[in-house]
């Protein structure tokens, strides 16, 4: 016979009392473990949800960014195309060239042809495609009509940039490019021979109708034009194409060119194409601002989700912080009352054990052994029940949380490891006083009453 055996026999004899004790401890431990599991599940789900949300937002922003980037590329391409389509839209003229005369009579002032080389060898970035030209309204005596003669030598490449496909091919010596009105009136075809100012030219290109002065213009080689016009080594203008820069382009161009070629002025030919380019620029800005708004709204959404989850976690934690101590206290009180009841039930038995020589220490041990068994059984059952409770209520399975993630937190591991110890300590504390009462019982009183 041992104290343990005595305790086990008594448990078997009074199963209900033992069961009540175990249920009480199970409830307390289940509450504690359940609350911890639930809180941990909350945390893991929060982290998971926020990560998913973050990823969703990042994806959405990345898609938007990609769209904006794509739009940017398209815009740049469109700008380039527009600019190209626009043709030369910057005129670099001698400073003496009057704007009024330019509009009324065409170009009248001239500047050295070397200006174009100076510009090409500079580090200029605000314009592309430099084309030196002479231009004059002249009489075509052979056909008795007035035309605009433009002499061009072809584009001068800007040295510090890569070679670009020229907007306009050079007109070779002896060749002539003819505007629409002229070739229509004269019924010219490519390859026809024409005479201009007593010089022979072969028609190389016939322009389609453009609805501009181009329709009454002929283009020949710059050198030949200079010779015809008596403007050797002189040009009237350098045509250029402005870059696809944003903002106040013309100021930038003027500033750059005046620094390289001080005796010149810059005129921008404004057009619908430029307006479209600007509209596209605005659209890009709008897309970028929409992207920024998307980012901001994503952040706000994330923040909102975080706050909602934190609020839920706090509610659960608050509820647990009230419920768990209450249930623990309730359990201790229940075990105390059960142990007290047990002491009363066992009065005769304790009296006889004392009479046959059991020491008070042994009586206490008998009671505490039973308390320990209740604590261990209740503790283990409570862990299982509490974990199941937290698992189910916390939506661990439905949210696809794996065990490892749940047990990453030391607090849950610690709670589960310590729960049986806590249960044993609690039942021990709750049974201590009844055990003392039992141990101090006077056997004489029991035997006399028997």
């Amino acid at each position, binding site marked *: *016979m041992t104290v343990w055996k005595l305790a086990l026999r008594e448990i*078997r004899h009074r199963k209900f009392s033992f069961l009540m004790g175990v249920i009480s401890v199970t409830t307390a431990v289940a509450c504690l473990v359940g609350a911890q599991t639930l809180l941990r599940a909350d945390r893991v789900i929060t982290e998971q949800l926020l990560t998913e949300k973050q990823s969703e937002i990042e994806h959405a922003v990345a898609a938007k960014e990609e769209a904006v980037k794509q739009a940017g590329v398209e815009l740049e391409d469109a700008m380039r195309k527009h600019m190209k389509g626009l043709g030369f839209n910057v005129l670099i003229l001698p400073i003496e060239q009057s704007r009024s005369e330019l509009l009324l009579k065409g170009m009248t002032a001239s500047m050295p042809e070397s200006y174009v080389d100076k510009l090409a060898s500079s580090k200029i970035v605000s314009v592309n495609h430099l084309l030196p030209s002479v231009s004059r309204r002249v009489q075509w005596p052979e056909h008795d009509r007035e035309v605009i003669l433009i002499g061009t030598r072809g584009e001068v490449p800007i040295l510090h940039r890569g070679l670009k496909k020229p907007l306009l091919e050079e007109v070779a010596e002896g060749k002539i490019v003819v505007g629409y009105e002229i070739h229509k009136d004269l019924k010219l075809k490519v390859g026809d021979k024409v005479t201009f100012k007593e010089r022979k030219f072969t028609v190389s290109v016939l322009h389609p109708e453009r609805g501009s002065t181009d329709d009454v213009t002929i283009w020949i080689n710059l050198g030949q034009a200079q010779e015809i016009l008596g403007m050797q080594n002189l040009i009237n203008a350098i045509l250029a194409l402005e870059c696809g820069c944003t903002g106040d382009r013309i100021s930038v161009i003027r500033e750059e060119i005046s620094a390289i070629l001080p005796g010149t002025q810059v005129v921008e030919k404004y057009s619908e194409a430029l307006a479209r380019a600007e509209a596209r620029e605005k659209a890009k800005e709008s897309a970028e601002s929409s992207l920024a708004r998307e980012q901001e709204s994503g952040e706000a959404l994330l923040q909102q989700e975080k706050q909602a989850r934190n609020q839920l976690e706090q509610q659960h934690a608050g509820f647990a912080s009230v419920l768990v101590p209450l249930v623990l206290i309730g359990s201790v009180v229940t075990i105390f009352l059960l142990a007290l009841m047990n002491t009363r039930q066992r009065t*005769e038995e304790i009296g*006889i054990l004392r009479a046959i*020589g*059991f020491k008070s220490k*042994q009586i206490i041990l008998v009671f505490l052994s039973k308390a320990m068994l209740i604590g261990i059984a209740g503790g283990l059952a409570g862990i299982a029940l509490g974990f199941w409770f937290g698992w189910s209520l916390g939506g661990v399975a439905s949210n696809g949380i794996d065990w490892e993630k749940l047990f990453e937190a030391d607090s849950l591991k610690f709670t589960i490891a310590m729960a049986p110890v806590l249960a044993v300590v609690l039942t021990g504390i709750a049974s201590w006083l009844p055990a003392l009462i039992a141990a101090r019982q006077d056997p004489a009183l029991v035997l006399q009453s*028997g």
Partner: protein
Amino acid sequence: MLLQLDSVSKTYKDAHSTVHAVEDVSLQISEGEFVAVQGPSGCGKSTLLLTAGGLLKPDAGSVKVNDQDPYAMTPDARAEFRAQSIGFVFQQFHLVPYLSVLENVMAPGMAAKSSISEIRERALHLTERFGLVDRRHHVPAKLSSGERQRAAMARALLNQPKLLLADEPTGNLDHQNAETVLNDLSEFAANNGAVLLVTHDERAVAHAQRGIILQDGKIATTSIGSGAE
């Protein structure tokens, strides 16, 4: 001298009354003696027995068991002393209800700090001696009254005490079982033990060597019993 009571008195007091349960009782019991105490209900028989057994401290006088005063000891030392020196048998048997006969018999061994194997050996022997071999693994509720009292006797003798205190051991038994228990008590006394029996049972006196009649807590008469012959 196995038991010596000198001028022992015990009074119960409450708010309304004072009862002199035992008053100036002196008694000696030697080895081999079987003493029966008789008297009407409430005359102080049980109080005298509990006082002699180290369970109820007297208000006056001294108690010595085997020349030792149990009341001079600490409660735990007294409990151990009780376990080793005194055996108790009660009218209500007072067996632990959830222990088997064998476990009930072994219980005092736990108190006396004997080795488990030795306790078991002795318990097996005692259950055999008291005819309980077939009942060893039965709980008290499954036993007859006679078997319960025999189990209680076996328990009382486990630690091989010199003094056996019996309080109405035949009170709940039929004639045959009562006779068996009284024979067992006589046998214990005959083997250098000492028995103090408190009873109403006239048959018990026939087994005792000395009969004492207690009246109002005092020894009224002392006689030589048939057991002395």
